[in-house]
């Protein structure tokens, strides 16, 4: 799968309260959450982005709360994937579980500039910066996580397992 879009850059330790503030958590409707994606870092973010765009951030992206509403908001806003130097643990798990592609890549986090056009090969983890004519390689996704992605998320994975055992 190829993902293609414009880079939006954020710093380190972007927490889930910034990704989707708790004042909007009285709903779990993805379309409603998407309207407020990254609101406290950039109030215009949801309106500015185009489908397929990419969030590029520093270390510890998604730290804080366990709210799955954070990756749901990002995905529903039309962001195709998140690239970061590192991800907080619960966000990492949640993103795979709901089918939001994420890539750990320190080099991309450093070299990509706002507005760069990126093309990501989700299977190989190769990140192409079309604007700068550079290529970066993301940390390989563990095999078990690949199985979850291949199944289309954790619920499909578990559902198949339940049926096979039934």
């Amino acid at each position, binding site marked *: 799968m190829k993902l293609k879009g414009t880079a939006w850059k954020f710093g380190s*330790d972007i*927490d889930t*309260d*910034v990704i989707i*503030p*708790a*004042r909007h*958590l*009285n*709903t*779990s409707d993805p379309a409603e959450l998407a309207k407020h994606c990254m609101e*406290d*870092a950039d109030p215009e973010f949801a309106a500015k982005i185009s489908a397929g765009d990419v969030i590029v951030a520093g*270390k*510890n992206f998604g*730290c*804080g*709360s*366990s*709210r*799955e*509403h954070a*990756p*749901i908001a990002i995905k529903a806003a039309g962001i195709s994937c998140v690239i970061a130097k*590192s991800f*907080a*643990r*619960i966000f990492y*798990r*949640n993103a795979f*579980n*709901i089918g939001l592609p994420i890539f750990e890549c320190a080099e991309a986090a450093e070299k990509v500039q706002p507005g760069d056009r990126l093309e990501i090969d989700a299977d190989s983890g190769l990140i192409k910066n079309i604007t700068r004519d550079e290529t970066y390689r993301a940390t390989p996704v*563990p095999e*078990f996580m690949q199985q979850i992605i291949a199944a289309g*998320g*954790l*619920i499909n994975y*578990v*559902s198949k*397992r*339940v*049926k096979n055992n039934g």
Partner: protein
Amino acid sequence: MSMTITEKILAAHAGKDRVEPGELVNARVDMVLGNDITAPVAIREFKKIGVEKVFNPDRIALVPDHFVPNKDIKSAEQAKILRDFAREQQLTNYFEVGRMGIEHCLLPEQGLVGPGDVVIGADSHTCTYGALGAFATGVGSTDLAAAMALGETWFKVPESIKFYYYGRLNPWVGGKDLILYTIGKIGVDGALYKAMEFTGPVIKELSMDSRFTMSNMAIEAGGKCGLIEPDEKTRAYVEGRAKFPYTFYQSDEDARYSEVYEFDVSKIEPQVAFPHLPENTKPVSEAAGIKIDQAVIGSCTNGRLEDLRLAARVLKGRKVHPEVRCIIFPGTQEIYRRAMREGLFEIFIEAGAAVSTPTCGPCLGGHMGILAKGERAIATTNRNFVGRMGHPESEVYLSNPAVAAASAVLGRIAKPEEVV
């Protein structure tokens, strides 16, 4: 081969003799937890799996605590999803307003989590139960859904970091200060993906309430869990409460740690975390004088009886500063009742503080104490991110309950000694 307490618990729940850091295991879960924000999503996902019933109606706890008593129609609809699901599935551990508490104060108090357990909760502060010597960690709603169906979940066995605390505690220094100090030393991702283990003579001396506070904030250093080896204090706490059998595990003396930190607590004074990260900690003396508009005392971090007693010691016979709102949130109905019987509420109300029913409300900027633009709070809660307690241009300083109470009296961040 030797193992840490984390490795031993995971091995036992994965049906293995031993596990190694980095290994992926499927582990049986003893308790699975959700709240009124995370469980509605989990219930929606659970219904897609294709099973009729949850794996065990006694091993799932649903606690509406974030936006309850319901703050608006939307949050009422969310809480209703939990209530309906609990009835439909005949869950034994659903806790309604009036009989509930903030989940991480409530579950240990009710004996629903115990030493040696594996617990997952769709709430990041699930790591609180590490204080009982349990492996407890936060997950998202989809993981919660899968665990409700299967009674197990997958884990990557984490490496462990040992934190050894020695020396003599200074006055007004407790679990909150030790954990803030630790986060300040290692940073908000200093324990990313790893198990934190809190040990040493100082930890042995800490009360269970203080231990819960420490384990509660392991996530604020990125930790997967924050464990304390169970001892006689743990035994005294769980005896008579535990609803299920429990097991005491200890780390082997030659267990492997990726890092070891040693802290001399005699050099630590009460800590304050400045906006907007819990790692921005400084001794309270360096924060003294910062004007505040609100003081919040409570939450899953510091809403236990010991915390309320500390606040009462400072507020007794004194008045909250005329320009400050002081709001106190007991962690559970039981803590509420005990605090009331001890006369703590008399002290708080005489001082001009508000006492609330248990709720997570203000900690996450939900309700019951939201900050306006430009306002500043001192809080005994766990996070001071941008916009955490309200407007994105408001500020939160984190501290222990005595510092928060002293600050409420003086209208500025203050040492308890300035008041008492």
